[in-house]
Protein backbone atom coordinates (compact mmCIF):
# COMPACT_ATOMS: atom_id res chain seq x y z
CA UNK A 1 0.00 0.00 0.00
CA UNK A 2 1.31 3.44 -0.89
CA UNK A 3 1.91 5.94 1.91
CA UNK A 4 -0.73 8.24 0.39
CA UNK A 5 -3.42 5.62 0.70
CA UNK A 6 -2.44 4.91 4.32
CA UNK A 7 -2.68 8.56 5.17
CA UNK A 8 -6.07 8.90 3.51
CA UNK A 9 -7.26 5.88 5.46
CA UNK A 10 -6.31 7.53 8.74
CA UNK A 11 -7.81 10.91 7.90
CA UNK A 12 -11.22 10.46 6.32
CA UNK A 13 -11.97 13.13 3.70
CA UNK A 14 -14.95 15.34 4.56
CA UNK A 15 -17.75 14.74 2.09
CA UNK A 16 -18.16 18.45 1.27
CA UNK A 17 -14.45 19.15 0.74
CA UNK A 18 -13.60 21.47 -2.16
CA UNK A 19 -9.85 21.11 -1.69
CA UNK A 20 -7.90 18.16 -0.35
CA UNK A 21 -4.17 18.23 0.27
CA UNK A 22 -2.49 15.06 1.53
CA UNK A 23 1.20 14.60 2.42
CA UNK A 24 2.31 17.29 0.05
CA UNK A 25 6.09 17.45 -0.39
CA UNK A 26 7.83 20.00 -2.60
CA UNK A 27 11.58 20.34 -3.09
CA UNK A 28 13.83 22.44 -5.31
CA UNK A 29 17.12 21.42 -6.85
CA UNK A 30 19.84 24.03 -7.21
CA UNK A 31 22.09 22.79 -10.03
CA UNK A 32 24.75 25.44 -9.31
CA UNK A 33 25.39 24.33 -5.74
CA UNK A 34 24.19 20.73 -6.31
CA UNK A 35 21.86 21.22 -3.35
CA UNK A 36 18.31 20.09 -2.69
CA UNK A 37 16.06 22.37 -0.63
CA UNK A 38 12.94 20.94 0.93
CA UNK A 39 10.24 23.65 0.63
CA UNK A 40 7.33 21.88 2.31
CA UNK A 41 6.99 18.50 3.92
CA UNK A 42 3.89 16.51 4.83
CA UNK A 43 1.36 19.30 4.31
CA UNK A 44 -2.18 18.10 5.10
CA UNK A 45 -5.39 20.09 5.05
CA UNK A 46 -8.80 20.28 3.50
CA UNK A 47 -11.08 23.19 2.71
CA UNK A 48 -14.86 22.90 2.68
CA UNK A 49 -16.98 24.27 -0.14
CA UNK A 50 -17.66 27.98 0.47
CA UNK A 51 -15.12 28.18 3.29
CA UNK A 52 -12.61 31.02 3.76
CA UNK A 53 -9.27 29.62 4.92
CA UNK A 54 -6.12 31.64 5.64
CA UNK A 55 -2.64 30.17 5.77
CA UNK A 56 -0.17 32.14 7.89
CA UNK A 57 3.49 31.44 8.26
CA UNK A 58 6.90 33.10 8.31
CA UNK A 59 8.38 34.21 4.99
CA UNK A 60 10.04 31.37 3.10
CA UNK A 61 7.90 28.69 4.79
CA UNK A 62 6.52 27.49 1.47
CA UNK A 63 2.98 28.87 1.79
CA UNK A 64 3.12 30.52 -1.64
CA UNK A 65 4.49 27.25 -3.06
CA UNK A 66 1.48 25.36 -1.67
CA UNK A 67 -0.86 27.87 -3.30
CA UNK A 68 0.96 27.73 -6.64
CA UNK A 69 0.66 23.93 -6.59
CA UNK A 70 -3.09 24.27 -5.95
CA UNK A 71 -3.25 26.65 -8.92
CA UNK A 72 -1.39 24.18 -11.13
CA UNK A 73 1.48 26.63 -11.65
CA UNK A 74 3.96 24.27 -10.04
CA UNK A 75 4.26 20.52 -9.76
CA UNK A 76 4.50 18.61 -6.49
CA UNK A 77 7.19 16.05 -5.69
CA UNK A 78 4.94 13.65 -3.82
CA UNK A 79 1.59 13.59 -2.10
CA UNK A 80 -1.84 14.34 -3.44
CA UNK A 81 -3.82 17.48 -4.26
CA UNK A 82 -7.47 17.23 -5.22
CA UNK A 83 -9.73 20.09 -6.23
CA UNK A 84 -13.38 19.12 -6.38
CA UNK A 85 -14.62 21.71 -8.81
CA UNK A 86 -15.84 21.93 -12.37
CA UNK A 87 -13.60 24.95 -12.98
CA UNK A 88 -9.86 25.39 -12.36
CA UNK A 89 -9.05 27.71 -9.42
CA UNK A 90 -8.64 31.44 -10.09
CA UNK A 91 -5.61 33.18 -8.63
CA UNK A 92 -5.04 36.67 -7.26
CA UNK A 93 -1.32 37.30 -7.21
CA UNK A 94 1.04 38.90 -4.71
CA UNK A 95 2.50 41.84 -6.59
CA UNK A 96 1.29 43.97 -9.44
CA UNK A 97 0.04 41.29 -11.81
CA UNK A 98 -2.12 43.70 -13.75
CA UNK A 99 -1.02 43.72 -17.41
CA UNK A 100 0.36 47.21 -18.11
CA UNK A 101 -0.57 47.28 -21.82
CA UNK A 102 -4.27 46.72 -21.15
CA UNK A 103 -6.77 49.18 -19.68
CA UNK A 104 -8.60 48.34 -16.47
CA UNK A 105 -11.61 46.91 -18.28
CA UNK A 106 -9.42 44.97 -20.75
CA UNK A 107 -7.50 43.50 -17.80
CA UNK A 108 -10.70 42.40 -16.12
CA UNK A 109 -11.99 40.97 -19.41
CA UNK A 110 -8.72 39.09 -20.10
CA UNK A 111 -9.83 35.56 -19.04
CA UNK A 112 -13.12 35.98 -20.95
CA UNK A 113 -11.39 37.24 -24.09
CA UNK A 114 -9.13 34.14 -24.10
CA UNK A 115 -12.20 31.92 -24.12
CA UNK A 116 -13.77 33.76 -27.05
CA UNK A 117 -16.76 35.09 -25.10
CA UNK A 118 -18.72 37.57 -27.26
CA UNK A 119 -17.86 41.27 -26.86
CA UNK A 120 -21.36 42.04 -25.70
CA UNK A 121 -21.25 39.41 -22.93
CA UNK A 122 -17.73 40.54 -21.95
CA UNK A 123 -18.90 44.13 -21.61
CA UNK A 124 -21.84 43.18 -19.43
CA UNK A 125 -19.83 40.93 -17.13
CA UNK A 126 -16.92 43.38 -16.85
CA UNK A 127 -19.40 46.16 -16.03
CA UNK A 128 -20.78 44.09 -13.15
CA UNK A 129 -17.32 43.42 -11.74
CA UNK A 130 -16.12 46.99 -12.10
CA UNK A 131 -19.20 48.04 -10.12
CA UNK A 132 -18.57 45.32 -7.52
CA UNK A 133 -14.95 46.42 -7.01
CA UNK A 134 -15.59 50.17 -7.26
CA UNK A 135 -13.61 50.61 -10.47
CA UNK A 136 -16.33 51.82 -12.83
CA UNK A 137 -14.90 55.29 -13.31
CA UNK A 138 -11.41 53.88 -13.97
CA UNK A 139 -12.58 51.50 -16.72
CA UNK A 140 -10.43 53.12 -19.42
CA UNK A 141 -7.41 53.98 -17.27
CA UNK A 142 -4.07 52.24 -17.74
CA UNK A 143 -2.51 50.52 -14.71
CA UNK A 144 0.32 53.07 -14.38
CA UNK A 145 -2.34 55.69 -13.63
CA UNK A 146 -3.69 53.66 -10.68
CA UNK A 147 -2.71 53.43 -7.00
CA UNK A 148 -1.57 50.12 -5.53
CA UNK A 149 -4.97 49.51 -3.96
CA UNK A 150 -6.75 50.12 -7.26
CA UNK A 151 -4.42 47.68 -9.04
CA UNK A 152 -5.21 44.96 -6.54
CA UNK A 153 -8.94 45.64 -7.02
CA UNK A 154 -8.34 45.00 -10.74
CA UNK A 155 -6.62 41.67 -9.89
CA UNK A 156 -9.56 40.64 -7.71
CA UNK A 157 -12.09 41.61 -10.39
CA UNK A 158 -10.12 39.66 -13.02
CA UNK A 159 -10.05 36.54 -10.82
CA UNK A 160 -13.82 36.75 -10.32
CA UNK A 161 -14.80 37.55 -13.90
CA UNK A 162 -15.25 34.00 -15.20
CA UNK A 163 -16.96 32.87 -11.99
CA UNK A 164 -14.78 29.95 -10.92
CA UNK A 165 -15.59 28.15 -7.68
CA UNK A 166 -12.22 28.36 -5.97
CA UNK A 167 -10.31 31.58 -5.38
CA UNK A 168 -6.61 31.38 -4.44
CA UNK A 169 -5.15 34.60 -3.04
CA UNK A 170 -1.40 35.00 -2.57
CA UNK A 171 -0.80 37.87 -0.13
CA UNK A 172 -2.85 40.15 -2.38
CA UNK A 173 -2.80 43.08 0.04
CA UNK A 174 0.76 42.59 1.32
CA UNK A 175 2.24 45.62 -0.42
CA UNK A 176 -0.54 48.05 0.55
CA UNK A 177 -0.57 50.58 3.36
CA UNK A 178 -2.55 49.57 6.42
CA UNK A 179 -5.55 51.78 5.80
CA UNK A 180 -6.00 50.69 2.17
CA UNK A 181 -5.54 47.11 3.25
CA UNK A 182 -8.34 47.37 5.82
CA UNK A 183 -10.67 48.87 3.20
CA UNK A 184 -9.90 46.08 0.74
CA UNK A 185 -10.33 43.41 3.42
CA UNK A 186 -13.80 44.76 4.15
CA UNK A 187 -14.62 44.81 0.43
CA UNK A 188 -13.31 41.27 -0.04
CA UNK A 189 -15.49 40.02 2.83
CA UNK A 190 -18.50 41.64 1.19
CA UNK A 191 -17.71 40.03 -2.18
CA UNK A 192 -17.12 36.64 -0.56
CA UNK A 193 -20.40 36.79 1.36
CA UNK A 194 -22.26 37.56 -1.85
CA UNK A 195 -20.53 35.04 -4.11
CA UNK A 196 -19.94 32.13 -1.72
CA UNK A 197 -16.55 31.22 -3.24
CA UNK A 198 -14.17 28.78 -1.64
CA UNK A 199 -11.15 30.91 -0.71
CA UNK A 200 -7.60 30.00 0.25
CA UNK A 201 -5.80 33.18 1.29
CA UNK A 202 -2.07 33.33 2.02
CA UNK A 203 -0.74 36.02 4.34
CA UNK A 204 2.11 36.69 6.73
CA UNK A 205 -0.16 38.95 8.78
CA UNK A 206 -1.83 37.27 11.77
CA UNK A 207 -4.18 40.22 12.00
CA UNK A 208 -5.30 39.82 8.39
CA UNK A 209 -5.84 36.07 8.78
CA UNK A 210 -8.09 36.53 11.82
CA UNK A 211 -10.00 39.36 10.17
CA UNK A 212 -10.91 37.31 7.11
CA UNK A 213 -10.90 33.60 7.78
CA UNK A 214 -13.24 30.90 9.04
CA UNK A 215 -10.14 28.86 9.80
CA UNK A 216 -6.49 29.79 10.16
CA UNK A 217 -3.81 27.26 9.27
CA UNK A 218 -0.44 28.04 10.86
CA UNK A 219 2.70 26.90 9.03
CA UNK A 220 6.14 26.22 10.47
CA UNK A 221 9.33 27.71 8.98
CA UNK A 222 10.93 25.82 6.06
CA UNK A 223 10.40 23.01 5.35
CA UNK A 224 6.84 24.16 5.94
CA UNK A 225 4.16 21.99 7.44
CA UNK A 226 0.81 22.81 9.04
CA UNK A 227 1.32 23.03 12.81
CA UNK A 228 -2.13 24.23 13.84
CA UNK A 229 -5.66 24.55 12.52
CA UNK A 230 -7.67 27.18 14.44
CA UNK A 231 -11.33 28.01 14.04
CA UNK A 232 -12.09 31.74 14.01
CA UNK A 233 -15.43 32.11 15.75
CA UNK A 234 -16.56 35.62 14.74
CA UNK A 235 -20.04 35.88 13.30
CA UNK A 236 -20.68 37.06 9.73
CA UNK A 237 -21.04 39.58 8.28
CA UNK A 238 -17.94 41.00 9.92
CA UNK A 239 -16.96 44.59 10.46
CA UNK A 240 -13.18 44.76 10.18
CA UNK A 241 -12.97 47.70 12.61
CA UNK A 242 -15.56 46.60 15.17
CA UNK A 243 -13.97 43.13 15.42
CA UNK A 244 -11.02 44.73 17.11
CA UNK A 245 -13.11 45.51 20.20
CA UNK A 246 -13.71 41.79 20.69
CA UNK A 247 -11.48 40.27 23.35
CA UNK A 248 -11.49 36.93 21.48
CA UNK A 249 -9.70 38.66 18.58
CA UNK A 250 -6.73 39.48 20.81
CA UNK A 251 -6.77 36.07 22.51
CA UNK A 252 -6.56 34.43 19.10
CA UNK A 253 -3.85 36.87 18.00
CA UNK A 254 -1.85 35.84 21.06
CA UNK A 255 -2.51 32.15 20.34
CA UNK A 256 -1.30 32.35 16.74
CA UNK A 257 1.78 34.36 17.68
CA UNK A 258 2.61 31.80 20.37
CA UNK A 259 2.39 29.03 17.75
CA UNK A 260 4.56 30.97 15.29
CA UNK A 261 7.13 31.72 17.96
CA UNK A 262 7.15 28.10 19.16
CA UNK A 263 7.90 26.72 15.67
CA UNK A 264 11.62 26.04 15.60
CA UNK A 265 13.78 27.86 13.07
CA UNK A 266 15.59 25.49 10.76
Amino acid at each position, binding site marked *: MSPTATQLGRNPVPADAAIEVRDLVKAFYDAGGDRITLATTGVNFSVKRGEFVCIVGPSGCGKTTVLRIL*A*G*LETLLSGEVRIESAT*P*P*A*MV*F*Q*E*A*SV*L*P*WLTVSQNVA*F*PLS*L*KGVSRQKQRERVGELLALTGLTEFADA*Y*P*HQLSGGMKQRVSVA*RALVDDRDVLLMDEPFGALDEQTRLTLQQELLGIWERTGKTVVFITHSVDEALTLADRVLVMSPRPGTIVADLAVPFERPRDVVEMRRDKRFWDLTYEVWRLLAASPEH
Partner: protein
Amino acid sequence: MTTPHPSLSAAEIERLKAPARRDNIYRILSYFSPLLLLLLWEIAAQAGAIDRRFFPPPSAIAGTAWQMIVSLELFEHIGATLRRVWIGYAIGAVPGVLLGLVLGLSAPLRRVFGPIFAALYPVPKIAILPLILLIFGVGDASKFVVIAIGVFFLMFYNTLGGVMQIPQIYLDVARNAGATRFQTFRRIALPSALPSIFTGLKVAAGSSYIIIAAAEFLGARSGVGFFIWASWQTFAVSRMFVGIVVISAMGYFTILLLEALERRFVPWAKH
Protein backbone atom coordinates in the same frame (compact mmCIF):
# COMPACT_ATOMS: atom_id res chain seq x y z
CA MET B 1 -3.26 76.94 -12.62
CA THR B 2 -3.69 80.52 -13.71
CA THR B 3 -5.70 81.74 -10.73
CA PRO B 4 -3.34 83.18 -8.13
CA HIS B 5 -3.34 81.45 -4.78
CA PRO B 6 -4.99 83.79 -2.23
CA SER B 7 -2.31 83.36 0.44
CA LEU B 8 0.65 83.96 -1.91
CA SER B 9 1.84 87.41 -2.87
CA ALA B 10 2.49 88.33 -6.51
CA ALA B 11 6.22 88.41 -5.82
CA GLU B 12 6.16 84.91 -4.33
CA ILE B 13 4.26 83.56 -7.34
CA GLU B 14 6.84 85.19 -9.63
CA ARG B 15 9.63 83.49 -7.70
CA LEU B 16 7.90 80.11 -7.99
CA LYS B 17 7.49 80.46 -11.73
CA ALA B 18 10.99 81.75 -12.48
CA PRO B 19 12.77 78.36 -12.93
CA ALA B 20 10.10 77.07 -15.33
CA ARG B 21 10.33 80.25 -17.36
CA ARG B 22 14.12 79.95 -17.53
CA ASP B 23 13.77 76.34 -18.75
CA ASN B 24 11.51 77.56 -21.53
CA ILE B 25 14.06 80.09 -22.72
CA TYR B 26 16.80 77.43 -22.75
CA ARG B 27 14.57 75.12 -24.75
CA ILE B 28 13.84 77.75 -27.38
CA LEU B 29 17.55 78.60 -27.64
CA SER B 30 18.40 74.91 -28.04
CA TYR B 31 16.42 74.82 -31.31
CA PHE B 32 18.63 77.54 -32.76
CA SER B 33 22.05 76.46 -31.54
CA PRO B 34 22.74 74.22 -34.59
CA LEU B 35 22.08 77.25 -36.80
CA LEU B 36 24.91 79.05 -34.99
CA LEU B 37 27.32 76.37 -36.22
CA LEU B 38 26.12 76.88 -39.81
CA LEU B 39 26.53 80.63 -39.42
CA LEU B 40 30.12 80.26 -38.17
CA TRP B 41 30.84 77.90 -41.06
CA GLU B 42 29.43 80.40 -43.57
CA ILE B 43 31.48 83.27 -42.15
CA ALA B 44 34.65 81.20 -41.99
CA ALA B 45 34.24 79.98 -45.57
CA GLN B 46 33.46 83.47 -46.92
CA ALA B 47 36.43 84.94 -45.04
CA GLY B 48 38.75 82.25 -46.39
CA ALA B 49 39.52 80.89 -42.92
CA ILE B 50 38.69 77.35 -44.09
CA ASP B 51 39.40 75.76 -47.45
CA ARG B 52 36.35 76.23 -49.71
CA ARG B 53 37.34 73.23 -51.82
CA PHE B 54 36.66 70.92 -48.87
CA PHE B 55 34.09 73.01 -47.00
CA PRO B 56 32.03 75.08 -49.42
CA PRO B 57 29.90 77.65 -47.56
CA PRO B 58 26.40 76.44 -46.57
CA SER B 59 24.87 79.02 -48.94
CA ALA B 60 26.63 77.34 -51.90
CA ILE B 61 25.50 73.88 -50.76
CA ALA B 62 21.93 75.18 -50.42
CA GLY B 63 22.16 76.55 -53.97
CA THR B 64 23.30 73.18 -55.32
CA ALA B 65 20.49 71.46 -53.39
CA TRP B 66 17.95 73.86 -54.87
CA GLN B 67 19.08 73.06 -58.42
CA MET B 68 18.84 69.35 -57.71
CA ILE B 69 15.37 69.78 -56.27
CA VAL B 70 14.15 71.80 -59.24
CA SER B 71 15.57 69.23 -61.70
CA LEU B 72 13.91 66.45 -59.61
CA GLU B 73 17.28 64.62 -59.71
CA LEU B 74 17.41 64.55 -55.91
CA PHE B 75 14.02 62.85 -55.59
CA GLU B 76 15.02 60.01 -57.91
CA HIS B 77 17.95 59.19 -55.66
CA ILE B 78 15.91 59.57 -52.47
CA GLY B 79 13.22 57.31 -53.94
CA ALA B 80 15.71 54.60 -54.93
CA THR B 81 17.36 54.61 -51.50
CA LEU B 82 14.05 54.66 -49.60
CA ARG B 83 12.69 51.73 -51.59
CA ARG B 84 15.79 49.62 -50.90
CA VAL B 85 15.87 50.50 -47.22
CA TRP B 86 12.20 49.84 -46.53
CA ILE B 87 11.93 46.59 -48.48
CA GLY B 88 15.16 45.26 -46.95
CA TYR B 89 14.04 46.48 -43.53
CA ALA B 90 10.71 44.65 -43.76
CA ILE B 91 12.33 41.43 -45.02
CA GLY B 92 14.72 41.47 -42.05
CA ALA B 93 12.46 42.78 -39.29
CA VAL B 94 9.51 40.37 -39.57
CA PRO B 95 11.47 37.11 -39.16
CA GLY B 96 13.74 38.81 -36.61
CA VAL B 97 10.79 39.65 -34.36
CA LEU B 98 9.08 36.26 -34.81
CA LEU B 99 12.24 34.24 -34.10
CA GLY B 100 13.06 36.52 -31.16
CA LEU B 101 9.62 35.81 -29.67
CA VAL B 102 9.88 32.05 -30.22
CA LEU B 103 13.39 31.67 -28.84
CA GLY B 104 12.62 34.07 -26.01
CA LEU B 105 9.67 31.97 -24.85
CA SER B 106 11.27 28.56 -25.29
CA ALA B 107 14.37 27.89 -23.20
CA PRO B 108 15.16 24.59 -24.99
CA LEU B 109 15.06 26.19 -28.47
CA ARG B 110 17.11 29.12 -27.18
CA ARG B 111 19.77 26.83 -25.72
CA VAL B 112 20.04 24.69 -28.83
CA PHE B 113 19.79 27.31 -31.60
CA GLY B 114 20.98 30.46 -29.80
CA PRO B 115 24.68 29.80 -30.57
CA ILE B 116 23.99 29.85 -34.33
CA PHE B 117 22.79 33.46 -34.10
CA ALA B 118 25.53 34.38 -31.66
CA ALA B 119 28.15 33.10 -34.11
CA LEU B 120 26.71 34.90 -37.15
CA TYR B 121 25.84 38.21 -35.49
CA PRO B 122 29.38 39.64 -35.16
CA VAL B 123 30.15 39.29 -38.90
CA PRO B 124 30.32 42.90 -40.18
CA LYS B 125 27.54 43.32 -42.74
CA ILE B 126 29.73 45.51 -44.94
CA ALA B 127 32.38 42.76 -45.01
CA ILE B 128 30.00 40.32 -46.68
CA LEU B 129 28.70 42.87 -49.18
CA PRO B 130 31.05 41.69 -51.98
CA LEU B 131 29.82 38.11 -51.41
CA ILE B 132 26.21 39.28 -51.56
CA LEU B 133 26.89 41.26 -54.73
CA LEU B 134 28.43 38.12 -56.20
CA ILE B 135 25.38 36.03 -55.37
CA PHE B 136 22.57 38.53 -55.97
CA GLY B 137 24.13 40.79 -58.60
CA VAL B 138 24.42 44.56 -58.61
CA GLY B 139 20.65 45.12 -58.80
CA ASP B 140 18.31 45.97 -55.95
CA ALA B 141 18.12 42.36 -54.68
CA SER B 142 21.62 42.55 -53.20
CA LYS B 143 20.68 45.78 -51.36
CA PHE B 144 17.54 44.20 -49.91
CA VAL B 145 19.55 41.22 -48.72
CA VAL B 146 22.38 43.12 -47.03
CA ILE B 147 19.95 45.43 -45.22
CA ALA B 148 17.69 42.52 -44.27
CA ILE B 149 20.64 40.69 -42.71
CA GLY B 150 21.67 43.70 -40.66
CA VAL B 151 18.09 44.43 -39.53
CA PHE B 152 17.32 40.78 -38.80
CA PHE B 153 19.99 40.43 -36.12
CA LEU B 154 19.16 43.72 -34.41
CA MET B 155 15.45 42.86 -34.30
CA PHE B 156 16.13 39.30 -33.21
CA TYR B 157 18.32 40.31 -30.26
CA ASN B 158 16.14 43.22 -29.15
CA THR B 159 12.98 41.10 -29.25
CA LEU B 160 14.68 38.20 -27.50
CA GLY B 161 15.89 40.54 -24.76
CA GLY B 162 12.40 41.99 -24.41
CA VAL B 163 10.74 38.59 -24.12
CA MET B 164 13.29 37.34 -21.60
CA GLN B 165 12.59 40.33 -19.40
CA ILE B 166 8.85 39.54 -19.19
CA PRO B 167 8.02 39.29 -15.50
CA GLN B 168 7.20 35.64 -14.73
CA ILE B 169 3.98 36.83 -13.10
CA TYR B 170 2.48 37.86 -16.46
CA LEU B 171 3.04 34.34 -17.76
CA ASP B 172 1.46 32.95 -14.58
CA VAL B 173 -1.55 35.23 -15.07
CA ALA B 174 -1.97 33.94 -18.63
CA ARG B 175 -1.66 30.33 -17.53
CA ASN B 176 -4.13 30.78 -14.69
CA ALA B 177 -6.56 32.47 -17.07
CA GLY B 178 -6.33 29.40 -19.33
CA ALA B 179 -4.27 30.83 -22.20
CA THR B 180 -3.07 28.48 -24.93
CA ARG B 181 0.55 28.62 -26.11
CA PHE B 182 -0.38 30.77 -29.05
CA GLN B 183 -2.46 33.11 -26.86
CA THR B 184 0.49 33.51 -24.49
CA PHE B 185 2.65 34.35 -27.49
CA ARG B 186 0.21 36.83 -28.99
CA ARG B 187 -1.38 38.39 -25.90
CA ILE B 188 1.54 38.40 -23.40
CA ALA B 189 4.93 37.98 -25.10
CA LEU B 190 4.33 40.33 -28.01
CA PRO B 191 2.95 43.30 -26.01
CA SER B 192 5.54 42.85 -23.22
CA ALA B 193 8.31 42.89 -25.79
CA LEU B 194 6.90 45.85 -27.77
CA PRO B 195 9.00 48.54 -26.03
CA SER B 196 12.17 46.53 -26.80
CA ILE B 197 10.94 45.86 -30.34
CA PHE B 198 10.59 49.59 -30.90
CA THR B 199 14.08 50.19 -29.54
CA GLY B 200 15.26 47.60 -32.05
CA LEU B 201 13.31 49.22 -34.90
CA LYS B 202 14.99 52.56 -34.20
CA VAL B 203 18.50 51.12 -33.93
CA ALA B 204 17.91 49.03 -37.06
CA ALA B 205 16.65 52.08 -39.00
CA GLY B 206 19.84 53.95 -38.15
CA SER B 207 22.04 51.05 -39.16
CA SER B 208 20.03 50.49 -42.39
CA TYR B 209 21.11 53.90 -43.65
CA ILE B 210 24.74 53.16 -42.81
CA ILE B 211 24.55 49.88 -44.72
CA ILE B 212 22.69 51.31 -47.72
CA ALA B 213 25.19 54.16 -48.08
CA ALA B 214 28.05 51.69 -48.23
CA ALA B 215 26.15 49.33 -50.54
CA GLU B 216 25.31 52.14 -52.94
CA PHE B 217 28.94 53.36 -52.97
CA LEU B 218 30.05 50.04 -54.36
CA GLY B 219 27.37 48.66 -56.56
CA ALA B 220 24.54 50.90 -57.68
CA ARG B 221 23.55 53.29 -60.45
CA SER B 222 21.14 55.31 -58.31
CA GLY B 223 20.45 56.25 -54.71
CA VAL B 224 21.85 58.81 -52.30
CA GLY B 225 24.92 56.66 -51.53
CA PHE B 226 25.73 56.30 -55.23
CA PHE B 227 25.30 60.03 -55.65
CA ILE B 228 27.72 60.84 -52.80
CA TRP B 229 30.27 58.47 -54.32
CA ALA B 230 29.79 59.82 -57.86
CA SER B 231 30.26 63.37 -56.53
CA TRP B 232 33.56 62.36 -54.99
CA GLN B 233 34.73 60.95 -58.32
CA THR B 234 33.96 64.24 -60.07
CA PHE B 235 35.14 66.31 -57.11
CA ALA B 236 31.70 67.97 -56.84
CA VAL B 237 32.05 68.73 -53.14
CA SER B 238 28.84 70.80 -52.86
CA ARG B 239 26.84 67.89 -54.27
CA MET B 240 28.57 65.53 -51.89
CA PHE B 241 27.44 67.67 -48.97
CA VAL B 242 23.90 67.72 -50.30
CA GLY B 243 23.99 63.91 -50.32
CA ILE B 244 25.33 63.77 -46.77
CA VAL B 245 22.65 66.15 -45.48
CA VAL B 246 19.89 64.31 -47.34
CA ILE B 247 20.81 60.85 -46.06
CA SER B 248 21.15 62.20 -42.51
CA ALA B 249 17.73 63.82 -42.78
CA MET B 250 16.24 60.57 -44.09
CA GLY B 251 17.55 58.73 -41.04
CA TYR B 252 16.32 61.46 -38.74
CA PHE B 253 12.79 61.49 -40.15
CA THR B 254 12.62 57.70 -40.07
CA ILE B 255 13.39 57.79 -36.33
CA LEU B 256 10.75 60.51 -35.84
CA LEU B 257 8.20 58.35 -37.66
CA LEU B 258 9.07 55.31 -35.54
CA GLU B 259 8.78 57.37 -32.37
CA ALA B 260 5.32 58.53 -33.43
CA LEU B 261 4.33 54.90 -34.08
CA GLU B 262 5.73 53.95 -30.69
CA ARG B 263 3.57 56.55 -28.93
CA ARG B 264 0.59 55.20 -30.84
CA PHE B 265 1.21 51.48 -30.20
CA VAL B 266 2.87 51.54 -26.78
CA PRO B 267 0.59 54.01 -24.99
CA TRP B 268 1.27 52.41 -21.60
CA ALA B 269 5.02 53.09 -21.59
CA LYS B 270 6.41 56.34 -20.24
CA HIS B 271 7.95 58.42 -23.03
